[in-house]
């Protein structure tokens, strides 16, 4: 019954590796870009702050699939460069998830009590130092649970990359299914794999939260 899975195991595992790689790239790229956008918006940097807000609100209103199609078809056509499905998916995931992560960072920043900033300024730290040494570390620690739920969302969303032809877990499974047509077993095993991987990632998030949480 599970012959089809066993026979295609190396192929499917390669797909899983690709899924995890896409997720890691998206998480790293999205977190860096999201943090920058959040800081620009939170500190109301002239012009750039408004642009960050516009970017965040626009991308949050667009489906991920459309974002990937833009990165794979529209942007290369507009700026006439060549891209691969993998590179386009990495770019699309980073740009997409950054807008959600930015909002999580920003609500973390807003949850830091103003008294702390005042106390920091009163001890003679410069505004930049207060932000870097006091406000930002607390904001990031507060933001851990929502950040990880976005990371889990991104991990599931990597399956959409199969639509533009990336051979990650879903894409590989669809190829195997196209040859051996046993959708119940194949899709069931793929669903189970996502369930396990996503649960693991949530678990890591909870562990980090238990160690670093700020409870108010």
């Amino acid at each position, binding site marked *: 019954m599970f012959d089809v899975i066993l026979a295609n195991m190396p192929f499917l595992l390669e797909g899983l590796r690709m899924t995890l790689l896409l997720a890691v790239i998206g998480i790293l790229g999205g977190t860096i870009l999201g943090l920058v956008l959040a800081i620009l918006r939170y500190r109301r940097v002239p012009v750039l702050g408004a642009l960050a807000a516009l970017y965040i609100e626009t991308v949050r209103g667009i489906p991920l*699939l459309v974002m990937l*199609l833009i990165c794979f078809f529209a942007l290369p056509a507009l700026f006439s460069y060549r891209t691969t499905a993998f590179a386009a998916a990495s770019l699309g995931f980073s740009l997409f998830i950054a807008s959600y992560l930015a909002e999580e960072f920003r609500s973390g920043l807003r949850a830091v009590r103003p008294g702390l900033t005042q106390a920091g300024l009163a001890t003679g730290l410069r505004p930049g130092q207060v932000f870097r040494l006091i406000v930002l570390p607390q904001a990031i620690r507060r933001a851990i649970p929502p950040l990880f739920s976005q990371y889990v969302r991104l991990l599931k969303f990597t399956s959409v990359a199969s639509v533009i032809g990336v051979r990650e877990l879903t894409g590989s499974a669809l190829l195997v299914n196209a040859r051996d047509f046993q959708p119940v077993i194949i899709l069931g095993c793929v669903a189970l794999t*996502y369930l396990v991987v996503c649960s693991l990632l949530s678990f890591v998030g909870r562990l980090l939260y238990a160690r670093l949480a700020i409870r108010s």
Partner: protein
Amino acid sequence: MSYQFDWTPIWQNRQLIADGLLTTILLSLAGLVLALCLGLIVGTLGASRSRAGRLVAGVFVECMRNVPLLIHMYFWYMALAFLRLPPFLCAVLGLTFYSSAYVAEVVRAGIGGISRGQTQAAEASGLRPWQVRLLVIYPQALRNIAPSLASLSSQLIKDSSLASVIAVAELTYQAGSIEGQTFRTFEVYITIALLYLALVTLVTRGLMSIPGLREPPAVAKVSDV
């Protein structure tokens, strides 16, 4: 940048785009209504006193939301192909089961946020259990969770774009077919991105402007002793 913009193919295919938009709206609406119903049931079970009920709800939520929506869609479309469901229905069912897990978590948190004293007072005044829920708990919980439900609705509209992979002729699918005929790649995808943005903004603003839902009312805190 040597790209020559040409927006005429978009205007020529406006009928296709309008059809796609209508399908997206219908798909989202059907998915939303069913996901709200299923989510309300599962969420109520998750907030119930019965341990078995909480366990069932927990397992349902974890299994549904930790599997990508795309897999949900393919499952209804391919694994359950013997049911011979039309693609539109497969997409509705996929959206419903996936989103209902999120709705259930929100509902559970909403019910959990209502002070126990409310239930106790309602029971003491002689209301039946279903009356307690319908008349006392849900109205208060709904107001508190309305912002979360509004953001889930906009999420669902965006998620409905994945129905294009199982050949439901919604907005993203129509964009692909127009692109295939006209090669106006950039214009097509920007147009539908803006349409999604407009739809999502409209729905979120619309839901939040319903009187009484905008601001969660100050719930009188009754201490649980």
